[in-house]
């Protein structure tokens, strides 16, 4: 059987087999086993067949064979012969697609001469015009691909052909008429794009434009089985490229697009607006000059009367694009375009603040930031009028409206001319167009901010913003003028009395930080002395005026060039305050400021820790002061909050140091560089004074900062057992006990090597530590157990699988079961000391592991245990789930929901309830299906936790409700969860409960807490809307 016979046989059965045959033929051609002549002759018989399908398949064979033939197998002459042969097949109405494919394959084997390209194009147009007569979209696609290739590779040839052949272009355009297939349309747009952009189309411009614009606006939804992956956006983009391809289209495109703006359909409108934007950017200044004013007159309504925000934004883009294009041309047309805009905006400004004056601000901002040419025209046309209107304005709200416009213009100015630290779009040598008005504007706003009554919050905020923007604008204000602004801002921070939400003060601080970014030296020069003058060495009168100053000061540290100065000044102030015997409150404020500043600049601490002097200058004196026991010990350092802050500051500075330095610090971990003997100090000396005990607060933070390779001052086991003993002293203050327990956690996490972890912990829990001994269990020992576990859990040790069951067994302990249950919440609770930056071992999967080891066990214990133990299981479960990311919980959620619902019945365990409701909320959000079968019990429990059914109270009478309600936080959470129910569950599931819920909720509307009432309002609305959904459908 010959190849062609085989191919024809396989063709309908399996395309793949057929391809194999074609490939084999190609290989034979290549190996000269098959002569081209005989290959063609074999086809002859089938090409004269009566059966059209047979002829088409034969051509498909030819095309496929050619596509497999490698380069240089066929000679030029052979290729020409083949080409002529294939072209002659155009006359056959069958197999056109394969002809096109064959030609594409041939072309890839060697480029055609110009005449040949012309011949192919001509005969294609002569024989197959119009293309739509071929019903198969994929056949047309092959032809379109051929033409696209010709357009790409024979661009000049085809252009010459068009120029020398009258009527060619119009025939060419009509050839594609009526194409509807999206894949083919993508091709058509791409083919037509070339003549649009490059050919001389003057006479046929309208026809060409209409050929593509007929498809506007594109409303196409890809079928669900779409294989080509063409999106509606692809089509829109390509069509838009066509529309904006040549300015010759302008007389047709612009009226047609403006016409589309009148449609009520938002999508069509948006397409028209984006098309206008791209047209405005592509048609060039000469063409746009003709249409700019017409476009302004039409586009402005989209902004003045916003139908939809996205349309307004697109209209502004279009207006800006026109301005950008016109800026490239001569000044006249740009003037002609901008004048009416400025005029109209000026008119709207007269009655600011209105909707239209806000629109004016948007116009001006959109247009002014385009180019320096535009600012040079817009500013002189708008600003003098704006300033006059401001002077004559009779209300503050009008002044505010006007300044809002001004601020927009300054922002635009910064976009064009840049700020002190970054360049704008304009040439640097150009003078800032705002210069002429800066003095007057500065006056107006300084005056406005300074003298307006403090209750004019929004007006003063606008003034402040304006000043801030002006101070940023490149080469605009002099250093003196910026100094004036800074002075005003810091006097607001320091002297102004507090009002309302203190928005102005906050804006002033943030403003200072922003100016500090641009002009650090002026801020240091102007604001720092003023701030420092406000910070006393000693606070005698109990005034807390220093707090806002310290806040502002600390915030400035976030600015790179301020960091060092701020730290230095605060530190000096602190030393002075300590010497003068200032109160703990003041010292805490200073330390807080220092800590805040250090946190802001943490990255700077890490950059070059070795050469920094902060350890010498800050850490050493602080530690020595904290630990000293003689007369130099400041009273303020007995305050636990002070010591905690000291510890945190030291932690930040010590953390990035190298191991060698860590070793030096570690030796002094408990003596804190005081030279006293370690064994006389806690935790080694159980009878130490309570003042000495407090140094543990500091050493905890220092311990946290050390690398795990650092050498501890005593043997590990001695340290651990000392801490265990120390933690059990009944008289410890809660903070010191907590510090000592946290040291245990840190040591278990960092310093016990993995190899000895199991034995060390076992020694503690069983022998000789006996922490797990049932007889000796008490609440202090339980704390120690959980402190140890807390350190081990993040290490993800395999050892956990043996400890966890032992701890879970205690849940049924008659006396301490509940305490144990509560302990579980500590295990995964986020901790600010056990972190990776503190060199702790935190495994990424430790939460998963604990979840897998604990949750199934707890559910199992729950189902087997007595009524007394069940609540303990629920408490423990909630403690674990509380800190678990939802995507871990989601795996088990089906089994957990019933337990969560039962947690809502516990009395007195409000935190447990809150956590359960939170989790149910997430389940509702992510996996509502799971909850559907429990809807009845969910709704009734949520209602019971949020409302009473008792008689409603009357005003003035005492409230004697029957059952005590959970606290407001739980009530609010329950209502929040209930709000989500109608939204997430199916309508028919929810509907039966509507009446009951809306009725019960009227009691929640009368809750005594405002927060609860607010949530009840939302919840009731969601439920009231339930049956109204039906009306819409």
């Amino acid at each position, binding site marked *: 059987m010959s190849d062609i016979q085989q191919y024809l046989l396989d063709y309908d059965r399996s395309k793949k087999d057929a391809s194999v045959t074609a490939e084999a033929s190609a290989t034979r051609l290549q190996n000269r086993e098959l002569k081209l002549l005989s290959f063609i002759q074999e086809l002859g018989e089938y090409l004269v067949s009566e059966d059209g399908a047979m002829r088409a398949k034969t051509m498909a064979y030819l095309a496929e064979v050619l596509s497999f033939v490698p380069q240089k197998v066929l000679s030029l002459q052979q290729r020409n012969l083949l080409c002529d042969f294939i072209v002659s097949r155009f006359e056959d109405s069958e197999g056109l697609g394969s002809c096109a494919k064959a030609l594409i394959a041939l072309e890839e084997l060697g480029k055609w001469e110009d005449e040949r390209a012309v011949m192919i194009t001509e005969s294609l147009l002569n024989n197959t015009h119009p293309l739509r007569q071929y019903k198969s979209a994929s056949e047309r696609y092959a032809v379109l691909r051929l033409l696209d290739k010709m357009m790409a590779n024979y661009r000049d040839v085809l252009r010459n052909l068009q120029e020398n052949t009258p009527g060619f272009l119009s025939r060419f355009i009509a050839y594609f008429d009526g194409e509807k297939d999206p894949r083919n349309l993508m091709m058509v747009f791409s083919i037509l794009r070339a003549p649009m952009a490059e050919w001389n189309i003057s006479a046929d411009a309208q026809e060409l434009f209409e050929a593509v614009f007929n498809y506007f606006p594109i409303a196409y939804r890809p079928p669900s089985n779409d294989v080509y992956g063409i999106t509606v956006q692809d089509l829109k983009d390509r069509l838009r490229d066509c529309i904006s391809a040549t300015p010759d289209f302008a007389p047709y495109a612009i009226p047609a697009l403006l016409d589309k703006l009148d449609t009520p359909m938002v999508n069509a409108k948006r397409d028209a607006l984006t098309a206008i934007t791209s047209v405005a950017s592509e048609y060039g200044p000469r063409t746009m000059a003709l249409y700019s004013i017409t476009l302004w007159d039409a586009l402005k309504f989209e902004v003045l009367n916003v139908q939809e925000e996205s349309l307004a934004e697109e209209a502004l883009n279009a207006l800006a694009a026109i301005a950008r294009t016109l800026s490239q041309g001569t000044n006249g047309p740009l003037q002609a375009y901008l004048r009416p805009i400025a005029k109209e905006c000026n008119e709207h400004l007269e009655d600011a603040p209105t909707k239209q004056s806000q629109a004016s601000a948007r116009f001006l901002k959109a247009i002014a930031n385009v180019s320096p040419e535009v600012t040079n025209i817009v500013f002189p046309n708008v600003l003098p009028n704006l300033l006059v209107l401001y002077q004559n304005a009779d209300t503050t709200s009008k002044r505010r409206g006007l300044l809002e416009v001004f601020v927009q213009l300054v922002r635009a100015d910064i976009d064009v001319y840049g700020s002190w630290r970054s360049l704008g779009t304009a040439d640097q040598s150009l003078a800032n167009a705002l210069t002429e008005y800066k003095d007057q504007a500065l006056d107006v706003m300084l005056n406005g901010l300074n003298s307006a009554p403090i209750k004019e919050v929004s007006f003063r905020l606008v003034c402040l913003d304006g000043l801030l923007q002006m101070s940023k604008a490149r080469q605009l204000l002099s250093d003196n003028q910026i100094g004036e602004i800074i002075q005003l801002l810091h006097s607001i921070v320091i002297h102004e009395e507090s009002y309302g939400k203190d928005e102005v003060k906050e804006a002033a601080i943030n403003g200072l930080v922003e100016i500090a970014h641009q002009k650090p030296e002026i801020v240091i020069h102007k604001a720092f002395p003023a701030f420092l003058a406000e910070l006393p060495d000693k606070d005698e009168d109990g005034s807390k005026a220093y707090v806002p100053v310290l806040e502002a000061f600390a915030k400035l540290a976030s600015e790179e060039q301020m960091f060092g100065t701020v730290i230095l000044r605060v530190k000096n102030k602190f030393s002075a305050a300590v010497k003068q015997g200032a109160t703990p409150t003041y010292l805490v404020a200073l330390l807080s400021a220092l800590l805040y500043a250090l946190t802001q600049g943490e990255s700077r601490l890490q950059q070059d820790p070795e050469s920094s002097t902060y350890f010498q200058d800050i850490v050493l004196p602080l530690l020595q002061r904290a630990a000293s026991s003689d007369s130099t010990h400041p009273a303020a350092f007995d305050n636990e*909050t002070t010591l905690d802050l000291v510890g945190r500051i030291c932690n930040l500075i010590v953390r990035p140091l190298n191991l060698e330095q860590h070793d030096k610090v570690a030796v002094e971990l408990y003596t804190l560089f005081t030279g006293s003997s370690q064994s006389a100090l806690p935790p080694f000396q159980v009878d130490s004074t309570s003042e000495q005990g407090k140094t543990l607060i500091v050493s905890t933070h220092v311990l946290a900062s050390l690398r795990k390779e650092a050498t501890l001052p005593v043997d590990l086991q001695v340290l651990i057992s000392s801490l265990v003993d120390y933690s059990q002293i009944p008289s410890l203050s809660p903070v010191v006990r907590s510090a000592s327990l946290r040291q245990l956690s840190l040591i278990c996490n960092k310093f016990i090597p993995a190899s000895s972890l199991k034995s060390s912990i076992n020694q503690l829990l069983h022998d000789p530590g006996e922490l797990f001994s049932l007889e000796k269990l008490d609440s202090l020992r339980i704390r120690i157990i959980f402190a140890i576990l807390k350190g081990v859990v993040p290490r993800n040790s395999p050892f956990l699988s043996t400890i966890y069951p032992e701890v879970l067994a205690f849940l049924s302990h008659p006396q301490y079961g509940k305490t144990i249950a509560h302990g579980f919440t500590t295990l995964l609770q986020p901790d600010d000391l056990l972190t990776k930056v503190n060199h702790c071992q935190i495994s990424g999967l430790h939460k998963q592991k604990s979840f897998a080891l604990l949750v199934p066990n707890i559910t199992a214990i729950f189902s087997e245990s007595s009524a007394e133990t069940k609540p303990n299981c629920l408490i423990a479960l909630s403690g674990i789930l509380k800190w678990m990311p939802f995507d871990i919980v989601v795996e088990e959620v089906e089994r957990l929901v019933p337990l969560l619902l039962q947690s809502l019945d516990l009395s007195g365990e409000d*935190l447990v309830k809150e956590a359960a409701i939170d989790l149910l909320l997430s389940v509702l959000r992510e996996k509502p299906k799971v909850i559907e079968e429990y809807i009845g019990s969910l709704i009734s429990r949520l209602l019971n936790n949020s409302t009473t059914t008792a008689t409603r109270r009357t005003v003035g009478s005492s409230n004697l409700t029957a059952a005590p309600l959970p*606290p407001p936080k739980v009530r609010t959470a329950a209502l929040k969860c209930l709000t989500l129910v109608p939204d997430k569950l199916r309508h028919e599931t929810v509907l039966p409960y509507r009446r009951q819920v809306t009725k019960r909720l*009227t009691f929640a*509307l009368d809750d005594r807490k405002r927060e609860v009432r607010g949530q009840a309002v939302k919840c009731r609305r969601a439920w009231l809307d339930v049956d*109204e959904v039906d009306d819409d459908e």
Partner: protein
Amino acid sequence: MDRSKDNANPTILNASDLPSRRRELSAKKRDDGGTGLFDGLVPAYNYLNDPFDGPLSSSDSDDDSFEDIDEQEIYDLIAPISDPEHPLSLAELAVVNLPDIHVEPPTSPQSSISTVVVEITPTITHCSLATVIGLGVRVRLEQALPPRFRVDVRVKKGAHNTDDAVNKQLRDKERVAAALENGTLMGVIRKMLSTCE
């Protein structure tokens, strides 16, 4: 464009100038004049939250105190309703104003019925949508207040050409009920209320 608007260019209030409760609250909370910048430095759960100590609850100690429904609360309920003509809230357009809201306590000690009076100010005196706005405010309050409140919504005296006629419509229970049966009207009102959070 859609139907022409009665007032195409209304005056707009800025959000920071609207009365709000937070203002008094935060002023009360911080007596040191700071903004609370340093409050977050030491995480609260470190020392305060020791789960081992006795029965723990998230209850704030002043749960027993009452926070009565006051004018500001009514204002907060109706301020975010959007205007049927503009994508702006009734508060931004100064259609509802805090001084024009009154909560009247029960008239006799035996009665538990309080009355809420809200006077609305249309943006212009010939606003054809005053009734719809009034109705919207009424629907919102009836949904959001407990049943012991009577709601009385009126147009402020002198703020509308035909304020008496509008008020009559808003006060007539049967007409209000009939209006709420009207699907188109309810559609408009639902859209107005959709911005209430």
